[in-house]
Structure formats: structure tokens, C-alpha cells
């Protein structure tokens, strides 16, 4: 039943890569990349996590079922995060020209000055 036995050098190499990744992520955090700081930090974290999963956790040498399940976990995590954010990020969007945004909640789109309602009020005077 002996599973895959990786050489020790593999583990040391992965460890080194993880430490380098940590150093890079700290260093990059002090560089102003504008809105790219967050994606870069997450990208490095995902790379590091992938190394751990593949080599320390032997997923690379495991059965297809286990690989499938690892994928499943992150797929459903992505659904949880992604589909909730579709709501959160689109709440402020306007639903029609010049009108209320969202479903009438929170943010609203600007009313264009001089558009129909204002003009009609002018006619009052």
C-alpha cells in the first residue's frame, strides 16, 4: 500500500519556494501598484497554496477522485464568493437611463440636470 515517496530534496525545494514566495509577497506589498496590489498578493498566495497541495499533500500523486474533489472545493468557493459579489458590486448600477439604481436600494444614479422633470417644473413659473 506504499504511496508515492518523494525525495527529501523535493520537500526542501518546495520549502525554499514557499519562503521565497513569502519574501516576495511582503516586498511587493510595499510597492504601490495601485489596484494591482491585491491581485498580486492573492496570486502569490494561490501559487504557494498550490505548491503545498501538490507536493506536501501529495495531490500530484493521488487518485483522480482526490484531484477532482480538490477542484470541487475551490469551484464551490468561487461560486460562493463570485455570485455574492455579483450582487454586491451591481447594487449601485442604474436600471434605466436617468433613474433609480439598484432595486431602489442604496446608491442611485445621478439625475441629469435639465432633464425632463426639471424642465417641466420650469414651465410652472
Amino acid at each position: 500500500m506504499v504511496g508515492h515517496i518523494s525525495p527529501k530534496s523535493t520537500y526542501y525545494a518546495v520549502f525554499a519556494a514557499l519562503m521565497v514566495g513569502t519574501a516576495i509577497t511582503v516586498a511587493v506589498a510595499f510597492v504601490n501598484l495601485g489596484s494591482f496590489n491585491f491581485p498580486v498578493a492573492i496570486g502569490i498566495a494561490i501559487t504557494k497554496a498550490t505548491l503545498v497541495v501538490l507536493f506536501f499533500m501529495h495531490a500530484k500523486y493521488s487518485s483522480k477522485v482526490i484531484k477532482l474533489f480538490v477542484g470541487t472545493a475551490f469551484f464551490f468557493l468561487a461560486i460562493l464568493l463570485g455570485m455574492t459579489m455579483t450582487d454586491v458590486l451591481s447594487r449601485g448600477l442604474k436600471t434605466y437611463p436617468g433613474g433609480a439604481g439598484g432595486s431602489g436600494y442604496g446608491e442611485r444614479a445621478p439625475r441629469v440636470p435639465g432633464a425632463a422633470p426639471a424642465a417641466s417644473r420650469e414651465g410652472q413659473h
Partner: protein
Amino acid sequence: MASRVDNLYFFIVAVTAFFAVVVSVLVIVFAAKYHTKDPLAVGQPIHGSMPLELAWSIIPFLISIVIFAWAADVFFDLQRPPDQTIEIYSTAKRWMWKFQHLDGQNEINELHVPVGRAVKVTFTSEDVLHSMFFPSFRVKADAIPGRYSTVWFTATKIGEFHLFCAEYCGTSHSGMIGKVVVMEPAAYQTWLAGGAGAGSLSQRGEQLFNDLACNTCHRTDDTGRGPSLVNKFGAPVELANGTSVAVNEAYVRESILTPQAKLVAGFQPLMPTFQGLLSEESVIALVEYVKSLRTTGGGGPRTASEPSATAPATPQNK
């Protein structure tokens, strides 16, 4: 709108009833026709049929697309108030609905509206979630603390109709009910004129504005320590952090309660917070006052009767 919702509803009921009847009849017919008392009898070895599987996957899907599209169309119109509405504000609180009319009337658990005119209610909650539900007008939206929600409707019949709280809110949830009184336009005008001793909503807001000394910084010209608020509502404004934001009810509310969250460009973060010092109703009065500060369209307080003088009543049941 109510009849559009009903039409859609009865359409879906008809479609689903059709499928329910077909399946039920088939089950009963099969059970009767192939019924046996011999426990060793064996049915015909039928394993399936690809054309049938495809048919009963694709046809229901197409039908549900039709339902989806129709329902989405109705939904968007339910979310979209017409340009000309009577604006009413409301605050939900355990366990009552407080309404503020532009002309200055306040009501609790009762809402007077004229027949045949679109009414838009903008509301928030002071405590927990509530939900403003007018079953007769087929509209509902949750009242959420810290946010403004809206519903709109056009009453087509004179009479009294239910107002319910539809989101569970504790002990007297089922007592958080009220009625909508739909009146003839003339009677409505009389009612409006009846109770406005304290002045209009924006006048009350102006009073607060002066009492709280907002006017020492927010002047009518740009000489104050804060930005002038004239003509600001409805337009985008540049913020100190370089972005811009639309000045709407939510933004005005946020700027009163947490002034430094979205600071206008060119101004110092000097304004104190009014979090916890103002009731939601006072905030609404201030919001309405800021809305009224405009030079186009005459300025001055808006009233419920104003739009009707210039715009035709909203067409019903479009």
C-alpha cells in the same frame, strides 16, 4: 401594475396546472391499466428513450424561459418608478410605520394617497429588518437599517387597503400593520391642506439645518468651510480621494451621519458626525431640505401637489 402581476401569475398557474394534470392523469391511467395482483408478474423491459428525454428536458426549459422573461419584464417595471410621482418618506420601527409627506403631514400606520397617481415611498428602518408590503398593489420591499428602499404604486380604486410588515420583526410583527386610504384627488388636496401646521417637510429640514448650525459652514455660496448645497442634489460630485459619487438620498444621509466617509474634494474633514444624534425622520427632513435647494425649477419647498400641476397622471396598467 397589479393587473400585470395577476396576468403573469395566472399564466404560470395555467401552464403548471396543465403539466400537473397531464402527469397526474398518466400516473392514474397507468396505475389502473397495468395494475396486477400477481407479485411475480414482470413489466415490459423498456429502458428509456433519448428523444423523449430530450423532449421533456428542452420543452419545459423553453417554457420556463418564456416565464422568466415575462416575469423579469414585470419585475423591472415594479422596480422603476415613473418620472412623475408623489414622493412620500417612511421610517419603519418596531412596530409601526411612520410616514412623512412633503407638505408636512405625518402619519403613523396610515397612508393617504390620491387615486390614479403614481406614489413612490422611500423608506428605511430604525432597528431591525421590516418589509413594506401593499398586497393590493402587489409590491413589497424590505426596510433595511442604514439604507433607503423604495416601492411605487398607482392606486386605481378608492377605498382602504392593507399595509403589512412582511419581514418578521419580533413580538408584534403581526401588529405592524396599517392601511392605505385611497382618496379622490380633491379630497386628497383637502386632506393635505388640513394638517400642515408645522410647515412642509423641507421647511422642517431647514429649521433643523439652522438649529444644528449647519448653515454656518454650508452657505448658499461657496464661501463657507463646507461645500454649498445648492443645486448639488442629483449631480455627481468630486471626492477628495479622486473618485466621484452621485448625490442622492443615500449619499446625503451618509454625509450627515459619517461626514468624512466620502469627503468632497477641496474641503477639510471638519464636520462632526451626527450618528446617534438624529432620528431617521430628522435625517429625512434634512435630505428633503437639501433636495429643495435648487435654483432651476424655482427652488423652495417641494409639495405633493407640485408635479401634478405640470405632468399628466401616470398612465395605469401600461
